[in-house]
């Protein structure tokens, strides 16, 4: 980050003599020689030196002394100076655990420098530190809370330790039997923890338990339908999917799953209707487009089928499935509508 911005700034100062303390100070800063940078920049009378001295101070853990000059630099009209100063201000706030103050600075930087790797990196650090800090407070303040077990389960899931995650969710349920989403997460973790068919039944009970707390949970109905399909209980699975769609008519995964059942039942026009809606809601869903293609094919609408095939091939071009699958495995529910 420093190198690119400094190149710009150095280029703008190229007319100066090499012995100019501003140039010498910027070069020393660029190579990480902060004592030399501070020495040179303090000698300079140039207004730019004030910002670079502040950057140097911030880099050597003297944020309090640096902050007034960095704040001025962040408000500068010169975008490279604004960017560097803004990043330093954000870093200082993060180091001092002032996450609420870092957040608006980084929001401004992201708006002004979209896609900038340094800005995104510092943003990621902010959230990571904020996450760690909140987690620490949670563990310290309420170590026996069910929330500690819940969050532990979620962390273990991201590490692929599904059996351990399931164990944490069970502890959370023991402490708070009425807690929403706990049975759902447990069901998901169980499904991920084992390839044994018997696990399906155990997971199904957990989704049913979730529905006992929240009968309008369309996603739980959908998960049960998936299990029933795996158990070849097609009629019951279809009923669950229909229920899920009664609760949320714009639930793309349920539309696709029911569309697939209609396809199997040779109810091609029903399948087309359901899958078309799913493809509208999720234009990038390969599952929706693939099954819509088959529905058109089976209905004898070959031109429509070929059009869907083209769309599917366009979607499938980039081989970036791995990370998407990883996210799916986290078992996140779609955002509430």
């Amino acid at each position, binding site marked *: 980050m420093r190198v690119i911005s400094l190149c710009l700034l150095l280029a703008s100062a190229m007319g100066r003599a090499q012995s100019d303390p501003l140039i010498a100070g910027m070069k020393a800063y660029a190579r990480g020689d902060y004592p030399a940078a501070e020495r040179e920049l303090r000698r300079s009378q140039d207004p730019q030196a004030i910002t670079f001295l502040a950057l140097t101070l911030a880099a050597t853990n003297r944020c309090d002394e640096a902050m007034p000059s960095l704040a001025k630099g962040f408000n500068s009209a010169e975008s490279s100076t604004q960017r560097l100063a803004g990043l330093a201000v954000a870093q200082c706030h993060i180091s001092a655990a002032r996450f609420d103050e870092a957040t608006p600075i980084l929001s401004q930087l992201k708006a002004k420098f979209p896609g900038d790797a340094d800005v995104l990196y510092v943003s990621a650090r902010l959230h990571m530190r904020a996450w760690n800090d909140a987690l620490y407070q949670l563990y310290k303040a309420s170590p026996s809370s069910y929330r500690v077990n819940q969050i532990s389960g979620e962390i273990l899931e991201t*590490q*692929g330790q599904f059996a351990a995650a399931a164990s944490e969710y069970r502890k959370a349920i023991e402490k708070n039997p009425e807690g929403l989403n706990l049975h759902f997460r447990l069901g998901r973790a169980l499904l991920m923890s*084992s*390839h*044994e*068919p018997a696990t399906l039944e155990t997971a199904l009970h957990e989704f049913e338990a979730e529905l006992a707390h929240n009968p309008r949970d369309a996603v739980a109905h959908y998960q049960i339908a998936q299990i029933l*399909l*795996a158990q*070849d209980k*097609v009629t019951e699975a279809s009923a669950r999917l229909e229920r899920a769609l009664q609760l949320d008519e714009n639930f793309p995964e349920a539309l696709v799953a029911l569309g*697939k059942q209609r*396809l*199997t039942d040779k109810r091609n026009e029903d399948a087309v209707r359901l899958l078309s809606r799913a493809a509208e809601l999720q234009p990038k869903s*390969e*599952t*929706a*487009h*693939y*099954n819509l*293609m*088959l529905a058109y*094919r*089976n209905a004898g609408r070959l031109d429509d*089928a*070929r059009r869907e*095939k083209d769309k*599917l*091939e366009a979607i*499938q071009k980039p*081989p970036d*499935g*791995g990370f998407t699958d990883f996210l799916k495995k986290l078992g996140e529910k779609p955002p509430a509508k």
Partner: protein
Amino acid sequence: MKFAILVLAFFQAAAPLYVPEFEDIAERAGLVHTFPNGGTVSKQYIIETTGSGAAFLDYDNDGRLDIFVASGEGAPSRLYHNEGNNRFRDVSTAMAITRTGWAQGVCAGDYDNDGYIDLFVTYWGRNALYHNEAGKRFRDVTEQAGLLQERVRYNTGCAFVDYDRDGRLDLFVANYLKFSFEETPKPGANPYCWYMQMPVNCGPRGLPFDRNILYHANADGTFTDVSVKSGIAAPNQSYCLSVLTGDFDNDGWPDIYVACDQTPSLLYLNQHDGTFREEALLRGAALNEDGKAMSGMGASAGDYAHTGWLSIFRSNFSDERETLYRNNGRAEFEDITLAAGMGRNTRFVGWGCAFFDFDNDGWRDLALVNGHVFPEVDRKQTDVRFKDRRILYRNIQGKFNDISEQAGSGILARHSSRGLAVGDIDNDGTLELLINNQGDRPSLLKQASRPPDHWVVLDLKGTRSNRSAIGARVVLTAAGLKQIDEIRSGGSYLSQNDLRLHFGLGSATRTDSIEILWPSGTRQTLSNVEGGRVVGITEPATGK
């Protein structure tokens, strides 16, 4: 009358099903050599993961199936002669099959119609066409047949197929990807070199694609690469492994299905003019039911539900379901894995697979062999293992029931298996399974007892068609069931099944009828053929 039918139906339904007990007789049969394929604790390169196949073939026309087992680097591939009484003798040196290297696939066919079955072995590196010299020895004729390749290729599955029905066997060779020890990244080098948070060998994702090859057989015993003009070369964005030929649209011309790893599988439909059109996606045989590419490894074709159309089974990776594509007619497929009773064995990485009728009830069952590509997975101590058992599905009137746990020690034994071939080594009407296990001796699974139902084996010889009768379609009717099958080279995972066709006849001791559509277009009908034996059938010299 109605009462009598009901009573009969009750007794039929209540009759206990025959339970097979498969034993591994390889060691006492003389299959004692180890066939290496790279590391057994850790594999550094993808080339160590994909090999190798196995074959049943009768190279000396003595009526008994012999065995070929392909080997990875470090030991030669071997040929074993069937001595009778379930004993085999290593004849590799005497028969001049001594080559070492990274052998992958094997397929058989009498490409010069001299009455002796020839052998083609694919390699990472130079392939080998072995001409059978009247059953006395094999001669490597790769170069003179024009089958040398211009560079090192990662050849995998292969099949002899008379795609233009001119009476000569052409040759299809699948290619996996472009690989070299020098240029392929090391484990952990990029995101495609990790599995379960462990650095593992890289690929196939991240490694360059290659393309498949079709060789046309010339009248003089040489082959010409027609990949481009036939349309075979065109789709080159898939990592291809197994080759499965068959007339999937019942138009009388052979089509070619290719199982591909982490990329869409391919279905080349024969256009009857020397070209193919790849249509797997629209036909519903490229992806799974969610429109996602699976890690296709092996493939088998069978009319498991007596619909008159060949369906396709494909084995896949762990955390994926195996895939059963039902052919709904005219080569329009539907993924019905779950509805057919499969799809619950998701911990296995599947390879060789075969529809076969182990109990002779007239319904084709299915065997599947397994083994992970990453030996490192054992360190994680999950239920996913480098060496795992086999799977046996019983076909009950078109639905499959996993009976592996009851099917004997041969099914339950754990190996890292790849190739699987099916054949009847002792002509007793029960089928044996030959399995190539990585870094281990092969398995030869034989049933401890014979099923009660009846059978017939058809041994077809072409005259106007290719001598091996590869591509011949048989429709056999017995005990009220109409079964179809075809003689095919290659298939399963890089392997070769018995070129003779085995049919279970259920309670019938004779067939009602046998209709044969020969590749030449000749139709032949036989009726009232007695079962319980191998029946030789020669293509009529004339007739339509």
